């Protein structure tokens, strides 16, 4: 007898995963199960599971009798805010979520489907790693995931959710994807774990210190967003998806336009201090610009001298970047360059317009930066902006000096529209440095060099430390009243909506990595 009743029974057994006691243990460690996570992600009732009946076919090391419902991973597709999204969620209650041949095969299948159908894919990681009993077949499984991650890069958005261990090779799939989201105290990523580290280098470190959410958000820059709980994580994931198009040929999703926060225009007139030595928070400018003041900051705790994130203007998603004058004076450094370049390239891949706020005194000086390769890393900024063919709008808020001015999406690198606040200072260098060089003879001849220097710096500042020289040469298209910021940016984006820029056909460029 084989009818719908048997099917029902089989389904029930398999969807129970590792069974009540293991599910209980999962909950006791503060974690949700794979199916609970998928329920949190997808619109109610929309998830369609694939490959429920797949299981391992290993016969070695006592695996013949090992029961592995779904082979430790739940895969399928569903709707998130009505849009198609593919997903896989590793099930820690089944053989510790370990990745074997068939487990990997299920993941490969949804990766292929997501790519073919042009839909984002979400990978939910909670796994003890490779299933050792299956040997090189499980290794091959990882390799297939990496290959598919790479081939899908720039075609569909790929997001990794770390809600459990991800150790060794398992971390490289998340690292290849566009965004890594981690839950604090639950998700951990590292190449070699605390035990191996202690036995080799003698360093003592806990799992959480080594690879927890806080570490990857602040120190390594491997996590883009972190959340205190899984519930907040899945809410955050849906918010992130709301800014992203389904694939590289689709338009970013539009929402009903919303006005900026109350009193934004008036605040914008006062947010950038007249005194160029005074810091401010560039996010205050960004929030007062966006629809409803809604700005989703990406990597908020890493390289804080560079702000990156998504907002909407007149309902359309915009990728927003800005130097942050209140951290490291807004200098560009190695980490900020990496953060910026990767964000610019993501936005360009998916046709999300780039809006760049400029206020930087230059590159961070020091041997640490030079030895660390700021030349190579800083070049990524130039490369990413020059390569980007999406609409590029820049707003110079205050300092834009020298090489850093060029790097921050200047007209010279192909910015389509450059706006400037009246406080902007677009110049080859800051007034003090410039005066020292230009007026060297006058300073040497002066009776009171200090007084003369002050006078000359002031005269240089008055003449050149403004947006008007750059505007006179056409490097700045419009000098705007800060209160007009939103209107001006909205107009610029509207004027560039159908922008197309063709490039030479090539296999791919060679970005300095």
């Amino acid at each position: 007898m084989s009818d719908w009743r048997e099917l029902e029974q089989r389904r029930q057994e398999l969807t129970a995963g590792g069974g009540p006691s293991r599910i209980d243990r999962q909950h006791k460690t503060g974690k949700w199960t794979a199916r609970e996570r998928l329920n949190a992600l997808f619109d109610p009732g929309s998830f369609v599971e694939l490959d429920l009946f797949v299981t391992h076919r290993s016969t070695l090391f006592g695996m013949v009798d090992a029961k592995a419902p779904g082979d430790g991973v739940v895969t399928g597709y569903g709707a998130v805010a009505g849009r198609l999204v593919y997903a896989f969620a590793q099930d820690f209650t089944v053989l510790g979520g370990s990745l074997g041949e068939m487990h990997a095969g299920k993941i490969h299948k949804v990766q292929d489907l997501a790519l073919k159908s042009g839909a984002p894919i979400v990978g939910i990681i909670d796994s003890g790693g490779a299933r050792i009993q299956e040997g090189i077949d499980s290794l091959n499984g990882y390799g297939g995931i990496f290959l598919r991650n790479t081939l899908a890069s720039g075609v569909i958005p790929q997001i990794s959710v770390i809600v459990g261990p991800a150790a060794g090779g398992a971390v490289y799939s998340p690292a290849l994807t566009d965004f890594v989201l981690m839950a604090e105290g639950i998700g951990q990523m590292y190449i070699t774990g605390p035990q191996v580290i202690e036995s080799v280098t003698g360093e003592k470190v806990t799992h959480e210190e080594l690879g927890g959410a806080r570490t990857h958000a602040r120190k390594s820059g491997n996590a883009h967003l972190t959340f205190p709980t899984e519930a907040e994580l899945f809410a955050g994931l849906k918010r992130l998806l709301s800014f992203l198009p389904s694939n590289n040929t689709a338009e970013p999703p539009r929402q009903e336009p919303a006005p900026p926060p109350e009193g934004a225009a008036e605040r914008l007139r006062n947010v950038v201090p007249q005194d160029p030595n005074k810091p401010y928070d560039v996010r205050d400018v960004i929030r007062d610009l966006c629809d409803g003041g809604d700005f989703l900051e990406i990597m908020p705790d890493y390289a804080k001298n560079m702000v990156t994130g998504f907002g909407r203007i007149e309902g359309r998603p915009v990728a927003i970047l800005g130097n942050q004058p209140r951290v490291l004076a807004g200098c560009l450094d190695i980490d900020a360059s990496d953060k910026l370049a990767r964000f610019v390239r993501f936005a360009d891949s998916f046709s999300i317009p780039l809006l760049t706020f400029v206020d930087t005194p230059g590159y961070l000086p020091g041997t640490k930066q030079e030895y660390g390769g700021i030349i190579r890393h800083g070049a990524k900024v130039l490369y990413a902006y020059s390569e980007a063919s999406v609409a590029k709008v820049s707003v110079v808020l205050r300092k834009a000096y020298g090489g850093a001015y060029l790097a921050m999406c200047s007209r010279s690198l192909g910015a389509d529209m450059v706006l400037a606040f009246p406080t902007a200072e677009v110049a080859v260098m800051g007034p003090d440095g410039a005066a020292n060089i230009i007026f060297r003879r006058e300073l040497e001849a002066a009776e009171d060099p200090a007084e003369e220097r002050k006078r000359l710096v002031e005269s240089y500042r008055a003449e050149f430390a403004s947006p008007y020289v750059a505007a006179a040469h056409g490097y700045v298209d419009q000098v705007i009243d800060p209160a007009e910021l939103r209107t001006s940016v909205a107009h610029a984006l509207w004027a560039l909506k159908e922008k197309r820029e063709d490039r030479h056909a090539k296999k791919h460029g060679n970005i300095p990595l």
Partner: protein
Amino acid sequence: MRRFHVVVNGLSYEVEVEEIGSEGEPPAATPASASAPSEPAAREVKAAPAPAAPSATAAKAPARHAQPARSQSAAPAASVGTPVTAPLPGAVLEIKVAVGDEVREGDVVAILEAMKMENEILAPCSGHVAAVRVTAGSAVDGGDVLLEIA
């Protein structure tokens, strides 16, 4: 545990070196610590001949000379809490807190003038100010400890 006598700039240090690695490491570690000053010692030297900067770090150094036989893992400064460091080289414009003050994570604890900007230095954690290591006007390097929060 092995003990070494190290003389640096005329000051003598007695150091204990504990082996923590396994296989093949002792041969590398032993000659290194015998021929050249071990790293903690080298750092102390850096702090000691700096009378120009009347900072607490410098004042601390002689006191530590008196303590013989510190273990190799001793931190370079006798830290009393979470250090708040200068993110970039510059001049301390203002210290906004005093020892004993309560601070919350994100509070502005000092102003550092660097890159022509009055940079706000924020508390990395909540707690009480345990030590202030610099005074207004002092020049600091990137990474120097400004104050400590415990």
